[in-house]
């Protein structure tokens, strides 16, 4: 974004920068002009970077003590918990860190949905984000298998069996994934390898995600382009750095609460029983962050169609920039979309709740209605809304509503605050 040429002050700096322009990059990241009206919902990008680094660092340490073998994995995790110095702390940070990562990513995604951050010219940022989200789910699933408890084993069995729904080649793919005729030691060793690999793929994609972001610059709560960089923006450092840092601190308090006070509340007690291929636990539920998709899977009575519905629920997000036909980005100026947005939030929360309940009776009915609504929101409501909705007037610049502008716009801004 910043077009000015950067020249290092020192002679050595200049010599080095001519050969590898790292200092130019650092200067770009420091001066990067950021819309000055960003609210705290914009701090989750930084929080997510923190989460990724936390998982990588604690994961590296855990890998020094963990043994990826069906006979030893369960005991090695207990060894980490009881014998390794601070092993309990590192493992609890890693296990709860996964949940914190998903908490932050869901807020980040729903922030994009509210302010239309996925719309032109930010489609590529959005799609890279969806790929990261998919990889996060893969990493979380693979990691959950490693302690080799009952939930690990049966979760792995159920999820790998999703592939058996593919006609003709399904069974062959499942055998190939397992490296045998059931989830067993070959499965565990390859899952460990892939669990180790994926965070680094995510790290690479995060670099692309930020690179793609720095081409058009940040979206902002009013969702309009920057008119005058000198008036509408502040440099990333120190303004955004210090704000992100404060938000991160608040986030870490929540994180620490889980790690130190209720480290197992987000897990399942069954996973402290070693894997047993002869006994399935009475109630198999995935981790909380996968529950809405699990509810969609179970709400379809046919095996193949259930799997297709679940995958579509995620992949439909990649098409969102084209399904949402409205030219106005921010929900602040879209009175109808704003209501449908909150209905969607409620719908996803309901799906998450029924995903944790048994798939029968009233729960199943609710899951089916909520699943149908989820798809209707993206495939019917959003495309039509763009043409039908009467949007509110958008301010001329980011600075205008702050400095007063017309009373109409000031009202819109207050509304915005109420909604958050």
């Amino acid at each position, binding site marked *: 974004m910043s077009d000015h040429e950067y020249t290092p002050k020192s002679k050595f700096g200049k010599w080095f920068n001519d050969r590898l322009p790292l200092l130019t990059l650092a200067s770009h990241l420091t001066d990067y002009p950021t819309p000055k009206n960003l609210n705290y919902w914009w701090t989750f990008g930084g929080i997510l970077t923190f989460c990724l680094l936390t998982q990588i660092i604690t994961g590296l340490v855990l890998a020094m003590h963990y043994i990826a073998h069906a006979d030893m994995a369960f005991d090695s995790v207990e060894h980490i918990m009881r014998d390794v110095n601070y092993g309990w702390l590192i493992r609890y940070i890693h296990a709860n860190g996964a949940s914190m990562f998903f908490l932050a990513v869901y807020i980040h995604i729903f922030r994009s949905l509210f302010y239309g951050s996925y719309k032109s010219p930010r489609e590529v940022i959005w799609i890279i984000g969806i790929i990261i989200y998919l990889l996060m789910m893969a990493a979380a699933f693979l990691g959950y298998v490693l302690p080799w408890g009952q939930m690990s084993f049966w979760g792995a069995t159920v999820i790998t069996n999703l592939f058996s729904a593919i006609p003709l080649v399904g069974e062959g793919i499942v055998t190939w994934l397992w490296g045998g005729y059931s989830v067993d030691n070959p499965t565990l060793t390859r899952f460990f390898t892939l669990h180790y690999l994926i965070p680094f793929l995510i790290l690479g994609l995060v670099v692309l995600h930020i690179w793609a972001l720095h081409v058009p610059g940040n979206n902002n709560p009013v969702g309009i382009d920057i008119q005058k960089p000198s008036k509408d923006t502040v440099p990333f450092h120190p303004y955004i750095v210090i704000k992100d840092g404060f938000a991160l601190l608040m986030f870490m308090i929540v994180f620490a609460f889980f790690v130190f006070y209720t480290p197992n509340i987000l897990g399942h007690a069954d996973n402290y029983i070693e894997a047993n291929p002869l006994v*399935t636990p009475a109630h198999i539920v995935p981790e909380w962050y996968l529950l809405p998709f699990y509810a969609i899977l179970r709400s379809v009575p046919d095996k193949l169609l259930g799997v297709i519905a679940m995958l579509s629920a995620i992949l439909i997000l990649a098409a969102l920039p084209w399904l949402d036909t409205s030219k106005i980005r921010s929900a602040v100026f879209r009175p109808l979309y704003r209501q449908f947005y909150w209905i969607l939030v409620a719908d996803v929360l309901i799906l998450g709740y029924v995903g944790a309940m048994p798939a029968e009776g009233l729960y199943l009915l609710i899951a089916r209605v909520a699943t149908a609504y989820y798809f209707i929101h993206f495939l019917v409501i959003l495309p039509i809304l763009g043409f039908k909705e009467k949007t509110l007037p958008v301010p001329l610049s980011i600075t205008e509503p702050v400095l007063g502008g017309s009373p109409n716009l000031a009202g819109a801004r207050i509304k915005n605050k109420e909604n958050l």
Partner: protein
Amino acid sequence: MSEKKTKRRDFLFTATYAVGAVGVGATIWPMIDQMNPDASVKALASTEVDVSSVNPGKTITVLWRGKPVFIRRRTQEEIAEAKAVSLKDLKHPEKDEDRAKDPEWLVMLGVCTHLGCVPLDQKGDYNGWFCPCHGSHYDTSGRIRKGPAPTNMEIPEYKFVNSNTIKIG
């Protein structure tokens, strides 16, 4: 003259791409195939089970290829119930005779065909098996009657070595 030369060059390009593609494929294949079941896994492909202590109305579960196999000695009522079912009522129509060679012995993979959980014995609406994961009900012949599972529980290859021993696989 020049046209003829161009054609020779095109042929060389195409041939080079084709050989290159075969080479890349031959290099990638071992990387893919190494994930398939290895020789040590395949070596455990069959198992012999002593069933002399199994009384009518009892089920034993044995591990074969890492999967549970149910061996149930069925009671006369269960056999009669399984035989009485009309094929029209079945989601995956199979006669009981085709599933249990000796009607007294039902040998099948104890793996739900929905997503691979182990169903519970003597549970569910059809006096057979019930899968706790997503609620599939199986009858006394292990056939799917209600719930999301698409097919009946699988019958593995097995034979009676003698009257007391079953060889699975």
